[in-house]
């Protein structure tokens, strides 16, 4: 074998090895999803439902056709953004579970565009800016409390979620209310709505806001110096400080970015989800409720990586869209809430590190597969250096 050929081959092998190890987290997410769905199936069985029929309905409702896929994507739109809120802060070493409240505030702020008259394009941008600004401000207070008073961000963000919920309810019922229909806020004017992307569905151009923001976050965190600082501070704050990274700055930055994402999530619902284009006050903001918490499940399964989140959001968006079909599916109507049970189980499983290690057989098999590859790469590396 000539030297040239072996270099090519070793490079290929190394690539394959790296891909396999890189896929390892994805496999774990997949395993967690399977376990979560299994927990849901057991629960449905115990309650006297037919889990197979229910899941068949769910899959059909999620990915059964172009209408269903569009609906899944529409459900994924806000989840991408709230998942990013959690992930950005987790990458910088903090648990920001305030996406829920920041999203409420962002949603209400975007309703304010109803008071302005602007040309299309500018109007959407105005709404997004309002929402992003409001979300960022709402998320800055817990960051500030953490920095100055040392208040744990889990407690402060949860308290802010409740305060935001009541504030948003108050604003929706008394301040930005539609004078003709007091059960909802003013509707977003035509010029500020995101046009529908696939006719007859509720998928709008708002999904591009989510995707674009995910890509921006990916670029910012993995391809800029400040992003590197954020991630370094999250991995080891002490080492980062010795390395000259100002942890306070990275903390503020991650909270602001997270708040912007959550605020935008509210805006995508208000400005981009047909048919209402308004927030209903009754029943505790039903359109917005729990999107922030669901985002945490998305973030976990997406491995807190923007690209992973895009994939995971499609999965969870599908669960939500399919769940709507599942609850009206023939003689086997399983309530939509089952979807959140499955989500919770998935997050529980995701909290187990090295999940695959718990299944010795899978691990052994996996190693059997990877071991020869490892040996080859090692051998060819040695040959190269020789």
């Amino acid at each position, binding site marked *: 074998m000539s030297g040239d050929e072996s270099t090519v081959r070793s490079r290929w092998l190394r690539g394959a090895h790296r891909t396999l190890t890189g896929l390892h987290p994805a496999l774990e997410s997949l395993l967690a999803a399977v376990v979560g769905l299994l927990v849901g199936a057991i629960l449905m069985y115990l309650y006297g439902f037919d889990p197979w029929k229910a899941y068949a309905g769910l899959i059909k409702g999620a990915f059964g056709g172009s209408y269903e896929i569009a609906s899944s994507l529409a459900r994924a739109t806000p989840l991408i953004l709230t998942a990013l809120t959690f992930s950005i802060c987790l990458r910088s070493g903090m648990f920001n579970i305030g996406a829920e409240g920041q999203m409420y505030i962002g949603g209400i702020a975007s309703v304010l565009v109803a008071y302005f008259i602007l040309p299309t394009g500018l109007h959407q941008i105005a709404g997004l800016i309002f929402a992003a600004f409001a979300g960022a401000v709402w998320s800055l207070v817990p960051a500030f409390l953490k920095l100055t*008073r040392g208040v744990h961000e889990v*407690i*402060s963000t949860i308290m802010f979620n409740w305060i935001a919920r009541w504030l948003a309810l108050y604003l929706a019922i*008394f301040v930005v209310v539609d004078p003709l229909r007091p059960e909802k806020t003013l509707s977003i004017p035509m010029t500020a709505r995101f046009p529908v992307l696939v006719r007859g569905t509720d998928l709008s151009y708002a999904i591009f806001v989510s995707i674009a923001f995910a890509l921006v976050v990916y670029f910012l965190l993995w391809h800029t110096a400040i992003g590197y600082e954020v991630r370094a501070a999250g991995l080891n704050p002490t080492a980062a400080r010795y390395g000259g990274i100002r942890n306070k700055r990275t903390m503020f930055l991650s909270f602001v970015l997270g708040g912007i994402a959550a605020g935008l999530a509210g805006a995508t619902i208000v400005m981009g989800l047909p048919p209402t284009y308004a927030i209903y006050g009754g029943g505790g903001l039903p359109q917005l409720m729990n999107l922030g918490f669901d985002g945490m499940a998305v973030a976990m399964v997406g491995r807190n990586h923007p690209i992973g989140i895009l994939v995971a959001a499609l999965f969870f968006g599908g669960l939500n869209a399919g769940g709507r079909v599942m609850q009206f599916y023939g003689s086997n109507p399983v309530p939509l809430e089952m979807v959140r049970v499955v989500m919770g189980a998935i997050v529980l499983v995701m909290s187990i590190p090295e999940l695959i290690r718990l299944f010795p057989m899978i691990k052994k098999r996996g190693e059997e597969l990877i071991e020869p590859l490892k040996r080859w790469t090692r051998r060819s590396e040695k040959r190269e250096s020789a």
Partner: protein
Amino acid sequence: MDATFGEEGIRMSFNDILSLLRISLHAMVPLALTAAGEIVGETAGLFNIGLEGILLLSAFGGALAAEFGGPGVGLLVGMGIGGTVSLVFAVINTYWRGTQMVTGIGINLFAVGFVAFGLIQLGAPGFHDVPKAVELAKLRTPMGLMSPMILLALIAPVVIHWFLQRTRAGLMLKAAGETPEAADVAGININRIRLLAAVFGGALAGLGGAYMSVAWLGLVTKDLSAGRGFIALACVVFSGLNPLLALLGAFIFGFFQALAEWVKTLPSKPIPGEFVSMLPYIITLLVVSGAIGRVRFPKSLGVPYKRE
């Protein structure tokens, strides 16, 4: 909306003060029990933010069990549910070295889904009444009808304080949370002691949850816990793992919840109801941000123990 703090707006009679105090004590119970339990868990090194979910699950399960076998069974089943959920949490976070925050988030998500699902299966979506006949009877006292659970909530923190400060087992718990390496060398099984502490704490939280549905409010809704799990966590943070201070914190938060309820019933409506409902959460934030700085927590809180 005219905000008049006028003559008849705020005028409290002696009876008002008494009933305010009575509601405060009732609202204190779930917070005090949950906080006391969490203090045991955190002393051993486990930070459980799934308390909110445990409260909700045990309130639901406790109510169903009470309808089946009376209030005593309801409370016991609530404890059992709390203990079981905490067992799952503890196994993941001791033997399997999981991420405690993420497990807690998972428990909370699961609970919200499960209880909403269960309530739909019971008939009315989002709402279930516990029949008066199976509610825990209230005691006649000079202050009016009081739940006997208030007594328990007042005693439990004292007992736990004594246990943590004065007994060998309490010191072992502290060692497991502070320097698990040293405790391990001294022959303490870190994972087992953390597991036991978490299960005990979860059982207390479960009792608090069952109390809400079986002995206090007499109903289950899908957001019955309303952030109480996190307010209890705030009590723990504010107290610096001292159960007696946590009890004081629980009373303060209970008082503001009662105050909020009381202001809502005023005919003159001096403050919009939404702002009144925010009050307990704002107070929690203020108290916690005022208290931090002087408290310290076990060194290994939240860190899984890995034997060298």
